[in-house]
């Protein structure tokens, strides 16, 4: 059940109404049932995988906490990590590795037949596996107590708003499940508004841009030049609106139910460097990688925080970020590029400071912002393209001058102007949202202003939404 489906539009209000009608101490059970139902609507039998992951992580954490011997603790901890990463590997990466190995053996004339599976990737497995691993690590490190209530822990793993594509919540979220918030009208309104904004981003902006991007990218050599450049710039906003739209709906839905999910975005295209970008884009994944991959490597005994170690940790971390997105070489490459760019930023700090002293801060910031945006557009090509040759075709298309009449652009003129207008609206709204207490300020406005905003948003979705259902991109990761 996708957020942008009619079934979700029926499912969510029913769940929300029933949820507040149930005594607080049983709400977890209802929400867990709703979450499992939500998951089973996608594929019935794959619920077993999630339940198995939950049970192993739950049991291992309790046993790990109970045991006094460090080695035994470690065994239980590793059981959970290996089991869950193993599932992730089998479903997501096995074919990638076996096909890559097969290609390698073929290239050196070694005859062998490495098997591949034709499993469907379980929905949200990358997200809930990371949740489980962070929980296992936190319990092993002793920063969190093992959760004794199996139902509460199962809900932590399966909480439906964050199930398909995050945000990746951490162990602290369990506390919220133990203490469900009472009904609060303003919070519910706030949540619904955020959900509507998420739907707007997805159906009005992302899906419109996707149609343009797909039209141009399906034959980049035929529509070389300006159309490919426009499609590439639109692609950045498409991916952003698709994913942040999903997160807004997830956060909004959770808010309605009384839960606070972590923010996953903070105006990423206002970033002035690649590292700044990753502090603003898919923040929960960045933080997860920082805490559980980057930091342990960078401050390990071997590297002790030395620059070489930091760079190595960066490249490993971002390669993992790339691979987390999908089992493809293009993802790995895009991830490594991020790591290299951040490392490059660290190594060029001194010369950049010199440039900064020559020109004004504003000009410097402007070029940093532009440079970061173009770099991200470049790497998004590798995220979107099915393989390297397609990505190279697109890149070639950018640098070849082509036809420039609207009629020949492969882009509908109206769609183009609507899209540009929508991107401006997006940036303005985000600018307003970024201000201090934006939400409180909005709710202090006269009722007429607020209701006008609600109606405009809903009418915008109705009139300008693209209702050909497109999947959320990150639900496929």
């Amino acid at each position: 059940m996708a957020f942008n489906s009619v079934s979700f539009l029926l499912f969510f209000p029913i769940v929300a109404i029933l949820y507040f009608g149930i005594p607080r101490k049983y709400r977890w059970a209802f929400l867990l049932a709703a979450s499992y139902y939500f998951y089973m609507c996608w594929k019935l039998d794959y619920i077993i995988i999630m339940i198995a992951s939950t049970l192993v992580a739950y049991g291992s954490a309790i046993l790990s906490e109970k045991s006094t011997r460090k080695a035994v603790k470690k065994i239980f901890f590793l059981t959970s990590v290996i089991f869950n990463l193993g599932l992730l590997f089998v479903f997501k990466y096995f074919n990638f590795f076996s096909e890559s190995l097969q290609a390698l053996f073929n290239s050196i004339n070694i005859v062998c037949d490495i098997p591949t599976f034709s499993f469907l990737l379980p929905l949200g497995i990358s997200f809930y596996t990371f949740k489980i691993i962070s929980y296992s690590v936190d319990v092993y490190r002793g920063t969190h107590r093992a959760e004794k209530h199996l139902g509460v822990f199962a809900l932590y793993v399966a909480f439906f708003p964050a199930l398909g594509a995050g945000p990746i919540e951490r162990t602290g979220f369990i506390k919220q499940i133990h203490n469900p918030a009472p009904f609060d009208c303003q919070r519910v309104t706030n949540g619904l508004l955020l959900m509507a904004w998420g739907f707007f981003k997805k159906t009005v902006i992302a899906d419109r841009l996707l149609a343009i991007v797909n039209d141009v990218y399906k034959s980049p050599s035929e529509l070389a030049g300006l159309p490919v450049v426009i499609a590439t710039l639109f692609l950045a906003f498409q991916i952003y609106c698709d994913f942040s739209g999903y997160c807004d709906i997830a956060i909004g839905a959770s808010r309605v139910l009384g839960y606070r999910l972590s923010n996953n975005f903070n105006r990423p295209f206002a970033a002035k460097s690649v590292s700044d970008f990753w502090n603003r884009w898919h923040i929960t994944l960045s933080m997860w990688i920082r805490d559980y991959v980057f930091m342990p490597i960078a401050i390990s005994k071997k590297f002790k925080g030395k620059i070489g170690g930091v760079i190595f940790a960066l490249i490993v971390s971002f390669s993992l970020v790339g691979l987390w997105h999908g089992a493809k070489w293009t993802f790995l490459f895009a991830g490594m590029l991020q790591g290299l760019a951040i490392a490059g930023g660290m190594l060029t700090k001194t010369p950049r400071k010199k440039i900064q002293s020559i020109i004004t801060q504003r000009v410097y910031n402007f070029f940093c912002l532009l440079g970061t945006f173009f770099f991200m557009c470049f790497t998004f090509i590798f995220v979107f393209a099915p393989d390297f040759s397609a990505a190279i075709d697109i890149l070639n298309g950018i640098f070849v001058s082509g036809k420039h009449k609207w009629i020949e652009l492969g882009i509908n003129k109206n769609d183009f102007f609507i899209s540009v207008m929508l991107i401006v609206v997006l940036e303005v709204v985000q600018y307003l949202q970024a201000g201090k207490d934006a939400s409180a300020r909005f709710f202090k406005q006269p009722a007429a202003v607020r209701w006008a905003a609600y109606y405009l948003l809903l009418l915008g979705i109705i009139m300008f939404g693209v209702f050909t259902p497109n999947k959320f991109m990150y639900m496929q990761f």
Partner: protein
Amino acid sequence: MGVLLLAGISVINKKLILDKLYAPQNVVLSRETNLIIIGDSSLEYSYNPAIIKNSINNARPAENYFYSYYKLKFILEKNKHVKTVVLGYGYHNLSKNRDADIMPSKMSLQFYNRYFMLLDATGRKEIQKLDMNYLFCYAKFCLGIPLEFYKNMDLIVDLLLGKFDHTKYPFWGDFSKDKKLRLNVAFEKMLDAEVVGSFYNGNTIAGKSPVMSAYLVKIAELCSRNNIQLILLATPVHKDYLSRVPPYYMELNSEMLVFLKKRYPDIRYYDYSSLLTDDSFFLDPGHLNHRGADIFTAELKLKISQEHCCGRS
């Protein structure tokens, strides 16, 4: 308050915009246009209207007889000067698989968005199932709720400026002149997909579609009522495709033809399915490329002029 607002907007949208936008008087073809080509992609790719004067190719991908009937009815309303209608009549056209586009499915929204505005109550009943896509289009076109309003903006601007262009209608077709010669790319795979998609349901023959048969008869009746010559046309297909057409469908087409001829003796049938044998004329097993289209259209022109069936063509 919100519901009232939406109702008000919907009424305005329906009465002042949609009813005016999708009205038959917007489609007035030039007086010289006397031949209309209608059907699915097999005609879309094979008939080049530049070769036969005063004709238009209005075929659209995957358009079945149900939609063709409503489209034709809409066009003919204000174009009584049309003398001939050429309708695609391949072996796949009466297959049960053609019903898929009027049934609730992932693809149905695409077709509803294209043709729903043309349907009358009978047509809507034909596709009415408990289907969200149907309800979505019903709300959009019949109730006037401005869902996906932006799709009409081009037409609205044209209408306001008084330079309405009916070829921008979503159901309006055209000749698709594909310059690529793709036949060698995974030909066998394409052939399998095309044969299975057209004739089989799993491993068994899909069977006959009563809906398509009924609407073919309705098209014949519509043409007969308007004194229009109906030509049923089987376009050239690749020899490998032809060899894999189940005999069931060949018999079905013949039987239907006999039935139609009995009822409407003026109907003509041109079978060009095996006209072209060389691979270089095909885009894929069921479609011609631009070279094939030019040769086929020239051949058709000759045939039509020999039979003097469409005046000045």
